[in-house]
Every structure is written in C-alpha cells, then in structure tokens.
C-alpha cells in the first residue's frame, strides 16, 4: 500500500522518551512526512501537540509521567483531528489495550520495518485502524474469554467475520493478503478492523478479559 510522497505532506509528531529511537525514526520518516515536533515526556508532548496540531502522533506506550494514554486523555478531546498511533518495544497486553482504549487508532511494535511504519501512519491519518499481529492477538485473547452475561452483545462480541480477519492479521498477513484469502475487498477488511477498534474502545468487556483475570486486575 505504498503511495508516492504527496506535496502537502502529512505532519507527524514523535513522542518517545528514548532520544536515539526518536532521532532514528525522524530520519526515516522525514523523507515522506513533515516532522511537526517531538517530545520525550507527557507534559512536553501535550504542549507540543497543542502548539502544532499535527495530523498523526506517534506515541510511545511507556512514557515518564503517565504513559501514552495520559497524552491522549489530555488532548484527544480538544483536538479531534489529531490521530494517534501507539508503538512500543516491550508490550504488556494491558498497557497496549489501555492506550488503544484511550483513543489510539492502532498499535505497532518498534521493530516494524520503516516502509510498514510509513504505511501505518498514512492509514491512521486516513482514519483507518492499524492492527499489528500482536495487537490482533491481544484483542482476540480479550474477546474470546467466557462472559456469562455480555452487557451489550453488539459491543461485547466480535462477529465471526471480524474474528476471521483478526486471526489472519495475527497470522502475519497484511490487509491486502487477508482480503485475497477471504475473497473480500481491502476496503471490507479495513471496515472490519475499524469495527473491531470501535468495539475495543467502547466495550466494557475489557474488564473481563483473560489477561485481566490472570493478573487479578478485575
């Protein structure tokens, strides 16, 4: 899904407490995107995002001062045009899910290849959801545990098709390959993934997930 660089370039704001990682990503992304700014902690990120109103914020899950979700909680409401893409290297399921539930439109690991990261940023900018294999696994895990009485069946369960799409993503297939294997269009795959994202963000079911009970968070 690589598109050629556009003249009016998407602005990207980097939030990561690791200076080396930030400068590496900046070098990679500067070819295609306009880097609006960067920050290494929650307060700096909030101020910087308010000042620059970027299209996409690349947001580390683990940040000093409250983590990535604190940034989304602070500015997500006031700046609805700003989209967030979460990334991290050491991903505990509950941290990732919490960041996505706070409003991030996707999650990728820091080991992602540069071309795929650019692709993910564009996807998030366009309002789509970005699910890495690991996030797909987390979500399947969260939604497949037994629930005696789902409060809202529409939000608390994934459809068979959505589960099928997520399973393929977890198996390492890109959206295009998922579409071909399931004989549906890429657009339909995107619709399913966005629907899963909506359920993940709105469902109260997260409290009943397997990992939450495992860790006695409930």
């Amino acid at each position: 899904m690589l598109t050629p660089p556009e003249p009016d370039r998407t602005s990207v704001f980097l939030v990561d407490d690791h200076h080396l990682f930030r400068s590496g990503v900046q070098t990679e992304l500067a070819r295609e995107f306009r880097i609006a700014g960067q920050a290494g902690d929650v307060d700096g990120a909030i101020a910087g995002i308010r000042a620059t109103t970027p299209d996409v914020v690349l947001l580390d899950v683990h940040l000093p001062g409250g983590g990535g979700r604190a940034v989304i909680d602070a500015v997500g409401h006031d700046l609805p045009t700003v989209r967030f893409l979460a990334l991290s290297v050491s991903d505990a399921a509950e941290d990732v899910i919490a960041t996505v539930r706070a409003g991030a439109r996707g999650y990728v690991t820091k080991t992602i290849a540069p071309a795929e990261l650019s692709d993910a940023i564009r996807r998030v900018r366009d309002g789509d959801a970005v699910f890495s294999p690991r996030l797909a696994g987390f979500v399947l895990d969260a939604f497949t545990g037994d629930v005696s009485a789902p409060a809202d069946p529409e939000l608390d369960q994934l459809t068979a098709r959505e589960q099928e799409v997520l399973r393929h993503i977890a198996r390492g297939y890109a959206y295009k390959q998922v579409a071909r294997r399931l004989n549906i269009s890429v657009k339909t795959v995107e619709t399913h993934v966005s629907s899963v994202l909506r359920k993940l963000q709105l469902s109260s079911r997260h409290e009943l997930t397997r990992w939450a009970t495992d860790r006695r968070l409930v």
Partner: protein
Amino acid sequence: MRTAGATTDMRGGGVPPLRWRRLPRLPRSTTNRVLRGVAGGIGERLGVDPLFVRVALVVLSTAGGLGPLLYAALWALSFEPAHPLPPRRPTQRQTLSVTLIVTGTLLLLGQAGLWLQGGLVWSVTLVALGSAFIWSRSDADRRGRWGRFAWLEPLIGGRISLPRVLVGAVLVVVGLTYFATASGAVGDLGAVVVAIAVTLAGAALVLGPYIVRLAQEVGDERAERIRSEERAEVAAHLHDSVLQTLALIQRSEDGREMAALARGQERELRAWLYGRPRVDSDQTLGQALEAAADRIERDHHVAIEVVVVGDGPMDRAGRAAVRAGAEAMLNAARHSGAATVAVYAEVGRDTVQLFVTDEGKGFDPAAVGHDRRGIADSIRGRVERAGGTVTITSDPGEGTEVQLSIPRDRGSAP
C-alpha cells in the same frame, strides 16, 4: 542483661576447647579490656556484654568490697590466651542459667547480710529480671547488623514482642516501687508510681527527638540496603543477558546475525519483565513456543513473530503442537528465504490450532525435494499420531503456510 536469642550456630566460629578438666582457668579478653581483660573474658565466655560484668563488679564493691576482691581472684585464675578467642554466643539455656545464677547470688548475698538487706535484694532482683526480659528479644545476628545502635533495636526494631516488653516493664516498675517503699524514702505508693511516670515522661521528652532521628537514620539505612540489593540483582541479570548480547553484537559482522541476537535478547528481556509468574515448573504452550522460536531465531538468523491466543498447559496436544510447530519454523527458516516467520497459536477448549506462515519463495507441494518431503512427513507424522490434521499450502513465489489442528483431551481443558 544482654542476651542473644536462640542462636546456637557454632559452625565457623568454633571455640577452641578449653582444658576445664585440668584447671578451670579463664581466658582474659585481648580485645575488650579496661584493666586486665578479666571482665571482658567473663563476658565473652558467658555470652553477655562485658559492660554488665563490669557494672556487676562495681556494684559488688558496695557489698563489703567484694568486687575488687573477686576481680583480683579471677585475675589470678585467668590466663592470657595466645590468640584472641571469638566470643561465645549463648543459647537460650545458657542465658537462663546466667540469669538464675545472678539472681541466686543476689539472694544469697542478701541472706548472708553482706549486702542489700531485706526487701532491697528483691527489688534489685526484680529490676534485673525485668531488664533481662526487655533486652532479650533481639537476636544476635540482627544486633550485629545494628552496630552500635544495637541497644535501640528492641525499641524500634521490627520484631518487638509486646508481651515481653510489658512483662519486663512491669517487673522493673514493681522492683523500683518496691525499692522506693521498702527503703522508706517515700511512704506513699501512689506518689512513687507518679514519680516514676514523671521520670519516664521526662526521659522520653529529652531523648525522644534523638531516638526518633536515630530510628530514621536506621530506617533509611535499611531502605538503602534493600534498594542496593535490588539494584545488584537487576545488575546481575542484565550482566548475564543484555550486556553479553551487546558484546556479541559488537563482535558480529553479519547484519542478520546481529538482528537475530538483538531479537533473541528482546524476547528474553520481555519475558523477564512481563512474564506471567509460573505457577509451577511446567511451561505453558505459549512459553514453549516462544522458547522454540528463540532457539531457531538464534540458529538461523530469521525473525519469528509468535502470537498466542488463549494459552494453556502443555498437555499431550500442546506437546505435539509445539514439536510439530518447531519443525515447521525450522523448515521455513532453512528453506523459505523469508526474513520473518509468523507463528500464530490459538488454544481453544477442544483444539489447539497452530499456523506457521512465511512469505518466502514457497514451493510446489507436488514436486518437493527429498529432504523437504522428510520434514513435511515428520510434521505430519507427529500431528497425526496425536489425532490431528495438517494442511500445508504453498505456491512458488507465494510463501508457505503450515496449519495444524490437534484435538485436546477431555478433562485437560483449562
């Protein structure tokens, strides 16, 4: 009286056998001496603080000059050891013996009219017993760590035994009250109690801030010690894992090898940081898969992404899935040419499903070479022996996917 708890551990600091049978001779202390080291020697042999022995000797001086006489006699009977002897740590039984001997001696002196007539001997005995109670809670090991603040430990240390302190305090107060009334200095019992209370309150006011500050320092010191122990543990782990890997990466010249080293380390560190605590020594299916993926990553320099949904114990189906999955990963790592291999496992109530996918060069399943046929057969053999099915889909240029599904035994469901 300072006594140690039930520290009977005499290993290491073994006391040289003294020739008591020939002549009971006391080794003088070479390290703890004011005059000739006699009191120090007694203290070390009996396992009590020499200070108490000295106080006892001084107090006994009032009993018709008994103290100096006793000291001279003991000195004459003692000898200078060639090398310093380690102090003894008394057992509880020894402690009790010393307490009883001291009590008995006091009573005997009182009866003999040498010292402290009448009720006074009782009050002194009560005070001594009470003090022994109060001081006897701290064990020797902990006192050693507290250094010269050891005397504070019973007051502020962690193992305060309230009943003992109360019993000790009651004994001391009763002894003091008895002394005050019996000596006729104060006639009114109530006034004595008030006087003692006022004295104690005054002492608390005067010494309070000092004690609090000391307690704080000791607390800080303990917290710092715990912190540094944790730091040492983390440092030890990082040294064995991350630093070794970083060294290997610096020595490595092959980019793929570097990446594999880094990935293996990342996986290991993540497991260490976020790994679910193991209930027992058994691995879960997910952990076993990760371990297999890690081995193959290290040996073959490919990246293997493992995603597990609904982990479970390593039952018969799980073992078959992990072994067959490892074969499939190995196959992909060796022959596909792909840089990454995706592994997805879903552990359901009834089945274990496993997908091993690569985007490598693929092959025509109808026309495979002999070696690959063998691997495919070994995957198939393992799975089918466990009652499962294998589907291998591949096309030249399209990558390969090995898909296995193995039924789980009834009753092994989580």
